[in-house]
């Protein structure tokens, strides 16, 4: 009986469960059909360096945990959300559906904590200089994911169609409208008209639940594949140690197992936050009413909001241009600061990063207090 089945590699045969067990038979059956042993072996040997900054390696997994929570709670909310009756359907979720208020509040809190975890992931990657060659594209896809996560936040914010979401969206899109040349056209395309109306919901809803998830899932796959191929980056201080002193955790088995209790605890934290500080549903959006007092953007847009306030009137365009330089500089960093161990550029990049982080925190706090 001739067959196209692949032979089991001897090194696989040694490491798989014994062939007379059920697990041994099943794994050999699969490997004979899908000869992926080199990939399995590569992943099994994946290891995470142990050093005093190791805790930051958990951040990516934490972002992924929150993203998973968002996918699950998002699908659940979609069961009762109706873009034709946005505010009424959210009210029904909160008032009538069992556990509806809890699930909505978890979606809200996980969104905020996901953005926070992305910031921690981004800055720890930056200060440990993991963006340097050969990891430029891991850094760039990560930046794209951070930007798309903020687009997730902005598009989802409108969907309950309450007072706050209406004015926040109107203000946010008006910033796009001020951009030179294409601003007006772009704003009309996003809004579906000259003002924020239910037509805007009909655009933001498919964006929030179909387009962004598809793009983000694709980019996450790419981002994680890059990390799997290259392994995690080792900081300069770790590389400088003699080889016999460098210690590692196995990724599967040790590192991942240690992250599971963190995820479980974060799940409990989400329920606690949702129960103690549930997301309110303000009165239904009234395009004719005055904006609520003290209205401010979500915290992750506060620094931009506060920075733009420093450029009043005709200077606002200058402020926008300067703000646009920040993501541009972040994309370009790995192509400029390339040296391992860090050289003068590397030290300058770190100092600029500290200044950027300090500016972000200061502007955000200022935005809160003003």
């Amino acid at each position, binding site marked *: 009986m001739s067959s196209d089945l692949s032979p089991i590699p001897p090194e696989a045969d040694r490491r798989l469960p014994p062939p007379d067990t059920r697990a041994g038979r099943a794994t050999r059956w699969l490997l004979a059909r899908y000869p992926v042993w080199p990939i399995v072996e590569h992943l099994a040997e994946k290891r995470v360096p142990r050093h005093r900054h190791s805790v930051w390696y958990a951040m990516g997994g934490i972002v992924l945990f929150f993203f998973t929570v968002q996918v699950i709670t998002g699908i*659940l909310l979609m*069961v009762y959300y109706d873009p034709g009756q946005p505010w009424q359907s959210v009210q029904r979720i909160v008032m*009538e*559906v*069992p*556990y*509806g208020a*809890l*699930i909505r509040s978890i979606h809200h809190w996980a969104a905020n904590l996901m953005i926070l975890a992305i910031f921690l992931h981004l800055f720890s990657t930056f200060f440990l200089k993991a963006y340097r060659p050969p990891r430029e594209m891991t850094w760039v896809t990560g930046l794209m994911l951070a930007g798309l996560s903020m687009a997730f936040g902005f598009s989802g914010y409108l969907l309950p169609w309450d007072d706050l979401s209406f004015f926040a969206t109107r203000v946010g899109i008006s910033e796009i409208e001020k951009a030179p040349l294409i601003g007006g056209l772009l704003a009309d395309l996003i809004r579906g008209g000259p003002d924020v109306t239910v037509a805007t919901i009909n655009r933001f809803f498919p964006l929030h639940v179909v387009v962004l998830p598809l793009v983000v899932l694709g980019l996450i796959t790419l981002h994680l594949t890059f990390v799997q191929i290259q392994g995690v980056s080792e900081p300069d201080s770790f590389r400088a140690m003699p080889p016999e002193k460098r210690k590692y955790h196995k990724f599967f088995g040790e590192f991942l*197992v240690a992250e*599971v*209790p963190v995820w*479980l605890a974060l*799940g409990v934290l989400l329920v606690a936050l949702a129960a103690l500080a549930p997301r309110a549903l303000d009165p239904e959006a009234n395009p004719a009413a005055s904006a609520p007092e003290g209205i401010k953007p979500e915290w992750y847009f506060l620094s931009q909001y506060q920075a733009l306030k420093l450029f009043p009137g005709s200077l606002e365009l200058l402020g926008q241009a300067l703000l646009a330089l920040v993501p541009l500089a972040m994309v370009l960093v790995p192509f400029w600061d390339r040296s391992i161990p860090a050289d003068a550029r590397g030290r300058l990049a770190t100092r600029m990063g500290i200044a950027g982080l300090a500016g972000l925190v200061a502007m955000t706090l200022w935005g809160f207090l003003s």
Partner: protein
Amino acid sequence: MSDRGEVVEEGATGRRGFLAVLGGLTVAWLAAVAWPVFRYLSPRPPPDPFGGEGKALVKGVAPGDVARPGQGSNGSYGGRGLVVFRGPDGQLRAFDSKCTHAGCNVQFQGDRIYCNCHGGTYDLEGRNIAGPPPRPLTPLRVTAEGDSLFVSPMSS
């Protein structure tokens, strides 16, 4: 504890114990998630089609549409389908139109009530007489009030 092998074995047991606790916690965590999700997805009981008054307005059929024997039509009450007709004996009758076989809406055809989906046939009393339906149609008490028809449950 001076014996090296003993220490390694103890470490392995500790690790197994840790994994067992972690596995148990994970299963408990998932179970705690599953219950609210199940409750969230469980549909509300449908509203009583007869409302508080014990009767429902018939939509889509007026008394004039079923004035003469042999006339009949499909309509609706409280969001459900019904078939209403005046039999050869001159009596006005109504049934919930949902076929007891697979849920298609049946049709009045003069001497019988017929389901177009799978050929289920009922007599004018709503009894299943041919084809796949396992049970008679649900009868409704029908009354004419002015320009409208109303239905109420047979039992009341």
